[in-house]
């Protein structure tokens, strides 16, 4: 007979969840449905509905940017994870280090340093100018790299790529080698093995990775400000309400709730794909 766990054993966890997960959520909800004086009010939602043109565009932009970043991350991460999982132990460890190092650096510093790379007279354009000088006598007009949608997506990909690689790599490195051998044995060449065994069995990792890239990308607020010029995404709008000049907690909270609802719907759609398979990324 197993001894029943004392309810007190769970107490710290329950307390933790209440304090750091439920309380902030409740707070957000309270802010969203009250006015400045603390009375119940739907003013913020009404305001959003009145200005839906603006907000629809911002939400749409955010989703589009996040989707783009997620797809690019997936396209980069899948082959890399596959290569890593099949490399020698030493190569695997080295690559893992290289992937982890940017995660140890401060997110703000990383994003800021991209500025100096992408600036008109930044590192990249200087290099381009030099290359241009080699082949042409004409004056070099630096292409605008910073403050473009591309730069924002680049920032997201750079920051969140490891979260795509790791779960996929984890799943792939746990694949039984005998499964790929069995497929080869039955007549599958390298591509068929990849298509019919490796890809389908990596789906749980892909689902985790997509979730872990998409969710932070859709709500990010720093990357778009620093790399996208004035362009603002929904994360920036929300930040503005809490820390910025607008200073309207209620509106910020209402936007947050709507964003959460959208993310929730996205996750449910993703869940259809994974079909109840357990998440691969176990922390």
């Amino acid at each position, binding site marked *: 007979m197993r001894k029943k766990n004392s309810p007190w054993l769970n107490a710290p966890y329950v307390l933790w969840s209440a304090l750091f997960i439920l309380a902030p959520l409740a707070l957000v909800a309270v802010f969203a449905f009250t006015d400045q004086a603390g009375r119940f009010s739907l003013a913020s939602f009404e305001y959003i509905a009145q200005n839906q043109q603006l907000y629809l565009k911002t939400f749409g932009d955010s989703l589009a940017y996040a989707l783009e970043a997620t797809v690019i991350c997936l396209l980069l991460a899948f082959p890399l994870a596959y290569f890593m999982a099949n490399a020698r132990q030493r190569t695997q460890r080295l690559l893992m280090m290289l992937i982890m190092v940017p995660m140890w650096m401060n997110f703000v510093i990383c994003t800021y340093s991209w500025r100096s790379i992408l600036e008109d007279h930044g590192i990249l354009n200087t290099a381009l100018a030099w290359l241009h000088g080699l082949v042409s006598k004409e004056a070099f007009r630096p292409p605008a790299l910073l403050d473009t949608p591309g730069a924002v997506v680049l920032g997201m990909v750079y920051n969140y790529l490891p979260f795509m690689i790791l779960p996929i790599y984890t799943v792939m490195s746990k694949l*039984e080698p*005998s499964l790929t*051998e069995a497929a080869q*044995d039955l007549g599958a060449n390298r591509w068929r093995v990849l298509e019919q065994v490796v890809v389908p069995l990596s789906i749980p990792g892909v689902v985790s990775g997509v979730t872990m890239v998409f969710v932070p990308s859709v709500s990010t607020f720093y990357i778009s400000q620093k790399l996208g010029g004035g362009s603002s995404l929904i994360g920036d709008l929300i930040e503005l309400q809490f820390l910025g000049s607008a200073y309207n907690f209620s509106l910020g909270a209402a936007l947050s709730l709507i964003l959460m609802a959208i993310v929730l719907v996205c996750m449910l759609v993703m869940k259809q794909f994974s079909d109840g398979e357990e998440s691969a990324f176990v922390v």
Partner: protein
Amino acid sequence: MNKDIVIDLKDISVAFDGQPVLKNLNLYIRNREFITLLGPSGCGKTTTLRVIAGFLEPDSGDVIFDGASCLGVPPHKRQVNTIFQRYALFPHLNVYKNVAFGLKLLRLPAAEVERRVEEMLRTVNLTGFERRSVASLSGGQQQRVAIARALAVRPRVLLLDEPLGALDLKLRKDMQMELKNIQQQLGITFIYVTHDQEEALSMSDTIVVMDEGEIQQIGTPKDIYDEPKNAFVADFIGESNIVDGVMLADFRVRFAGMTFQCVDKGFAPSERVDVVVRPEDVDIVPPGSGVLQGTVTSVTFKGVHYEFIVDVQGFKWLIQSTDVQAVDDVIGISIKPDEIHIMKKSKYSDLVGDYSCFSDEFEEMSNPETDSEEEEE
């Protein structure tokens, strides 16, 4: 060149990290033969199969398939299929799709795929399991799916790597019969790997006894049992008493302090040899009248017969008989000439001794492969 030979392994050598695993292996396999690689865990059986299947290129030597070398031919182009040690069923596909996997790669028409899958599932008694997920099947059922999947593509040769290792005894016996039937029914060459000598003896046309990457003996089960080539084979295949002896002349051997008539000849005068006597071949006679005399030190009832350990001048003999004896009884031992088998001395001579301790059981206990398999079940 013999037309009947499907696979010919010529001088195959394989080493991992400088450690030789197969040493100049020479072996040919006849069409429709049931051939078994038998040897202790780690002797290179799986490695041999991997060389044949194409997963491993030998360091030297040649693999001839149907008269042509198939070195460098990737596994997916070889007409050989494998039943892996742990089945390796595709967890994301149901039973039907597992069996259809190879057929779809052949781009057969859908109707033909379906016909063949159903046929194979019938052969392995799994009709009605098409939509089941492989994870929901028992070990024996998964084994059948693996067999159906490999046979569906109609390979010339099927490689089976300890396919029954993870099954319990009863199921194992049933599957042995079934596999043998399937092999005869379909007329496919089976290369079967096991470390279980009984399994090898009961199923095979030919047994290849291996140890440390070398073939010790190739022969029919009867050859191997009755005429083991060296002390390793004698010890590995069934119980045997292996005694130091000296060949006095043709048909005359001296061991345990006495001279015996035997049926072997062709040894040098006074050549030192290993003498094998199977426990069931020893006759117990009243003491005094027998040529050898010893004291019973242990008695075990084995269901049909008794097993005695008998101390003959300090050497412990294993004797099986239906007669009842008690511990400390003094008995006579008589051995007929054709029950004495003489082997040349080999590097194994000093390793196999008498039955002062049950070496066989110790072997079983320290066999890592058996251990881990039982744990995982």
